């Protein structure tokens, strides 16, 4: 009891700070639909109830967010003048490019001309002002039931973001790239980017969601993905923010029957990184692939928590996460698979593999299976290892340098994930990034 009281006391100045920030933000936001304000207020109330998570919570056991909780982050302002144009340049050929800076849609940095008929890429703030019914059935609906303080905080500060709406049966040939830039403003600043994707029945699209930064800041991002029946979304989330940044992200998927969702989480940057992915397979015949590659160095902490909720029968989920950890970096992987009583004939497979490149690198990995149906196939596996000495010697004995041999073996380890990146220029970009992130030889 004493402990509880103490905890509340120490947390309260922080909560008071965010409560004041919330009041300030609401007063500064242009008028929003009532349902949005209600969602924000209830999210703020939930955040105040929850407080920042501590390592006493199972879901945050290995990830202390004290460095975030201790700092009175203030909402970042526009920051557009400081954006590095090279950072936001598109990676693929002729994509639709939507840029958001400090959570605010930046049409002047975006390139959205000539979108195919039936495809809308919009700023959320504009949409809420001009056509709120477009997003009302979806916005902040998936996050409603979450009990994650950061998710609540994002919704509480909901103002702007990027909305992608694809009409039924529209097939996009070229990728959509969405870039979220966090620009530091000297003091501790936070932005709450939001991405909402509504893919109509039978539509198909490829989406690359990128996070870059100028200086250190705190990015608290939310993505909400709605797949209609038979929609096919190939999604990549590439995070390459500066090394001293905080990146907390939640991605929430809801798919109707026969949806096909594949997502690749590619984490390279940031100092403290937490990704929560929650996929609800709410229809029969859904195929969900969640892949991840995380590459840590120095003192990076990279935490991936995924939940795949098999609510209906005949769905498949495939999950492969791979980590490459150097120096004193630390990784956490927690893969939860829920198979509800109705979800017979579920086929779920989960693998987490980590390559530790130094004695001081470490990982905590945990599968979490909650199976309530009896006719299902669920497998999981984890493997943690070092670079194979025999393979290293074999390569060197053929004339390859130590660093080339290491690079070749590391690339091979990451191959499972990288080879599935379907956008070739993005794949090449990732290969270069991988080599650049781990150039040193221990």
């Amino acid at each position, binding site marked *: 009891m004493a402990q509880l009281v103490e905890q509340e006391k120490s947390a309260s100045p922080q909560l008071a700070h965010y409560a004041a920030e919330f009041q300030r933000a609401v007063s500064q936001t242009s008028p929003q639909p009532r349902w949005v304000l209600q969602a924000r207020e209830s999210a703020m109330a939930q955040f105040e109830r929850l407080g920042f998570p501590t390592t006493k919570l199972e879901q945050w056991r290995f990830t202390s967010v004290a460095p975030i909780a201790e700092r009175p982050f203030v909402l970042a302002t526009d920051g557009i003048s400081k954006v590095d144009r090279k950072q936001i340049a598109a990676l693929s050929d002729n994509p639709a490019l939507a840029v958001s800076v400090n959570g605010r849609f930046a049409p002047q940095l975006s390139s959205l001309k000539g979108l195919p008929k039936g495809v809308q890429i919009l700023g959320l703030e504009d949409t809420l002002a001009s056509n709120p019914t477009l997003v009302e059935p979806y916005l902040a609906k998936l996050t409603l039931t979450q009990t994650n303080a950061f998710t609540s905080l994002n919704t509480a500060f909901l103002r702007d973001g990027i909305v992608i709406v694809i009409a039924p049966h529209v097939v996009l040939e070229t990728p959509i790239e969405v870039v979220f830039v966090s620009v530091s403003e000297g003091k501790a600043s936070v932005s709450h980017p939001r991405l909402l994707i509504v893919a109509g029945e039978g539509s198909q699209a490829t989406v690359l969601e990128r996070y870059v930064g100028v200086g250190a800041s705190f990015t608290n991002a939310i993505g909400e993905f709605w797949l209609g029946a038979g929609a096919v979304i190939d999604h990549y989330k590439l995070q390459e923010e500066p090394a001293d940044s905080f990146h907390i992200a939640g991605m929430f998927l809801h798919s109707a029957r026969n949806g096909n969702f594949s997502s690749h989480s590619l984490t390279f940057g940031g100092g403290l990184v937490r990704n929560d992915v929650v996929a609800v397979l709410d229809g029969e015949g859904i195929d969900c692939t969640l892949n991840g590659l995380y590459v840590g160095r120095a003192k990076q902490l990279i935490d991936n928590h995924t939940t795949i909720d098999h609510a209906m029968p005949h769905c498949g989920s495939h999950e492969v996460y791979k980590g490459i950890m150097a120096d004193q970096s630390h990784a956490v992987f927690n893969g939860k698979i829920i198979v509800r009583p109705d979800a017979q004939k579920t086929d779920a497979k989960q693998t987490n593999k980590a390559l530790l490149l130094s004695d001081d690198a470490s990982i905590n990995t945990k599968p979490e299976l909650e199976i309530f149906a009896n006719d299902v196939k669920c497998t999981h596996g984890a493997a943690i290892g070092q670079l*194979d*000495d*025999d*393979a290293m*010697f*074999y*390569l*060197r*004995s*053929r*004339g*390859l*340098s*130590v660093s*080339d*041999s290491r690079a*070749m*073996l590391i*690339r*091979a*380890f990451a*191959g*499972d994930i990288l080879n599935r990146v379907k956008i070739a220029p993005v794949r090449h970009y990732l290969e270069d990034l991988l080599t650049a992130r781990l150039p040193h030889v221990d």
Partner: protein
Amino acid sequence: MLEIKNLQVRAGTKDILRGINLSIGTGEIHAIMGPNGSGKSTLARAIAGHPEIEVVGGSITYNGKDLLDMAPEDRAREGVFMAFQYPVEIPGVNNAYFLKAAINAKRKHQGLPEFDAMEFMALVREKANILHLDPTLLNRPVNEGFSGGEKKRNEIFQMAVLEPKLAVLDETDSGLDIDALKAVAEGVNAMRSPDRAIVVVTHYQRLLNYIVPDFVHVLQDGRIVRSGGKDLALHLEEKGYSGIEAAQPQLM
């Protein structure tokens, strides 16, 4: 070309090589024979520079250079090649990609222009033809899922592409049926050259029917106990290694 003097290697507290002396000249083929545990493979690995080999005494001089002072990759670039007894499977690394990196590392070291994809493929096709190698092996990950014979042929294929000055074949015959053995031997014989020395490490005389050595050395308990011409191998076949033990210790 290769001068080994009083080479001593220890593994933990155990002496594996206890003073090896061996002189190998250009154009020569030497066979190193011996029973299991005699130190044959250790000798091969010491030449290639395996990091787990702890040399506690003696020297290896290669073309006037101190080989023991060189990293394995530098030895390879200078023309030393070891065909592994157990070629390593490397999932995710494409065989052709690996081999192109290897030959270009060597060419760069020699001050030669690196091969582009076209030049490399032409070279590889030519060598694959000579060895009757299934070209689809090139597009597979290095040794992954290869049969025993395919692995060994892949080693000889790498040797053919890299064209070493000194090739050490570590029990290349082990685990091969007679057809695979002949194919491997044919590949090695195609590599015979006045500019190249080949060291064949083997337990059995069988391989030497197909790769005829100029010199045969018998290794036992970490020492060369006998050296001779190709007839020594036949003698061994007849008498076995125990027959050698009774013989005079060699003086070199």
